[in-house]
């Protein structure tokens, strides 16, 4: 495979793969949620195992900085904390996850690996569009099939 230029802007279809969208019933606690949401990225070689542990460490230190709005979190750490290659994964947890007493319960867990602060812009654009449309967020929380979630997200890119 050709070496990818780090500053190159990647398209959403390169950054979100259908097999990295998952649906589960529940998690034990928020730490479990962090690990489970990052598992597809770990399995795919996009992050090192220490990445999830660093997210947990940063959460204890800073609070759940990745809860974007009601029902949506963007689990991530800094590139040097174990990211290998930019990629997004999505896990829908039907039983809401509570990260701390002041944050919103979350069912949609996005997990992000980024190599720098800007080259994953297509993912962020999609995420921002998605989060700002409550009907889309509600539609995803109702999904039972990963393929339906994938389609809603891909449509959010436009």
């Amino acid at each position, binding site marked *: 495979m050709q070496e990818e230029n780090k500053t190159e802007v990647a398209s959403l279809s390169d950054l979100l793969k259908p097999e990295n969208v998952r649906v589960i019933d529940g998690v034990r606690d928020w730490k479990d949620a962090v690990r489970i949401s990052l598992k597809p990225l770990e399995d795919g070689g996009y992050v090192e195992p220490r990445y999830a542990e660093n997210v947990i460490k940063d959460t204890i230190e*800073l609070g759940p900085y990745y809860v*974007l709005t009601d029902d949506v979190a963007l689990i991530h750490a*800094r590139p040097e904390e174990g990211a290998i290659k930019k990629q997004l994964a999505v896990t829908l947890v039907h039983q809401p996850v509570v990260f701390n007493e002041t944050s919103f319960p979350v069912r949609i867990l996005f997990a992000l690996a980024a190599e720098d602060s800007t080259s994953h*812009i297509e993912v*962020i654009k999609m995420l*921002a569009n998605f989060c*700002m449309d409550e009907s889309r967020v509600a539609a995803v929380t109702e999904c039972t099939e990963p393929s339906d979630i994938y389609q809603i997200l891909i449509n959010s890119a436009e």
Partner: protein
Amino acid sequence: MVRIIAVCGAGLGSSFACQMAIEQAMQALGVEVKVSHTDTTSIGALVSKADIVCCGSNFRKLVEKKNLPVPVVYLDRLVDKKEITEKLTPILKDMGKL
């Protein structure tokens, strides 16, 4: 032109999404802005390039300690255009931009 910096822990996820929401909210208000994003450790050095700083409410204690010389807006929902608009409007009015 109003310069706004969105801040989060890692400086590439939540703050980047917040940047997009601020850009859309300000476009709707008709305010010309230049928005960027960074992390909580870099904001001290970058604040000279900002007129307003936006960050998550979870960073309030951390950011207040920095005594930034510009208005800081603390957001419960980083991507909520309504909250962003409500909290930025009085500041923009004070600055004479609205």
